[in-house]
């Protein structure tokens, strides 16, 4: 199974949507690739991914995450990386936001839209978050 994901949003909820599916898929022997673009870059930004914002009005769910023992985002990101999930940051968005590769976590690649399309063209599942 091959799974291609686009992460285009950068909040706490978005991180869980992306990384829960990605790690579950990797654990099920799938080949997983995530393309991070626009606000989605937050999810792999060295500092930002440890301090993602909750949607306005949903701040009280923070407690719920603790109560349900949901792992912190940085742990999920590390796990995804260890399980071989391929992460690619969008070059164009990085240029717009004046970000460099060293602003991001270890082990990511940088690429353009075609990089993602080449990976996604024969994927069994394609998701956008």
């Amino acid at each position, binding site marked *: 199974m091959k799974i291609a994901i686009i992460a285009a949003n950068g909040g706490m909820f978005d991180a869980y949507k992306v990384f829960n599916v990605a790690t*579950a898929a990797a654990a*099920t*022997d799938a080949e997983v690739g995530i393309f991070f673009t626009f606000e989605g870059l937050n999810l792999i930004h060295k500092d930002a991914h440890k301090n993602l914002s909750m949607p306005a009005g949903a701040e009280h769910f923070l407690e719920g995450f603790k109560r349900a023992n*949901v792992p912190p985002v940085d742990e999920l990101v590390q796990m995804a990386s260890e*399980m071989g999930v391929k992460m690619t940051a969008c070059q164009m968005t990085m240029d717009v936001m004046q970000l460099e590769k060293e602003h991001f976590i270890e082990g990511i690649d940088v690429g353009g839209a075609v990089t993602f399309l080449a990976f996604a063209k024969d994927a069994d599942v394609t998701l956008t978050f």
Partner: protein
Amino acid sequence: MEVIVNKVLDAKGLACPMPIVKTKKEMDTLEPGQVMEIQATDKGSTADLKAWAESTGNQYLGTVGDGDILKHYLRKESIQEEKPESKHPYVTTLDELSKKIAGNEKITVLDVRESAEFAFGHIPGAVHIPLGELEERFEELNKNDEIHVICRTGSRSDFASQKLAEKGFGNVKNVIPGMQEWTDSLEKTH
């Protein structure tokens, strides 16, 4: 009944997708055919582990509730079972076995699966000796009985049938294809 497992994984208190991620990691350390118990409190873990087993080619045996804890049993798939090479010359079908049981014929059903598989459903009255214990325990069986050997797919029961024939059992039949397609009555001991 006590279920013998090769590994117990504690995934209690963990939320999705952690029970699956941990199961994957632990499963990689098991030998084919071994059984793992996964203890979880995540209510979604039953459906998830079933689906996971199906996608990865492992065998989901069943789940037992123990208070708030769910105990899931999985068996690591062995490559050998996917390509059974039948050698024991005497075989019988599930239909024939069903008829003999219904007709109260004096036969012995020997189930050679692992204890967790046996516990989650076996033919009522079946004698249980896992394949790995047959060498030490075959004397519990009577050489003159008509013995029907069964497992999940007909592969382990083939080995067991051959072994019993070597030991001088003269009336041994391998039941094909095995419990995975058995639709008649089942007894559970777990």
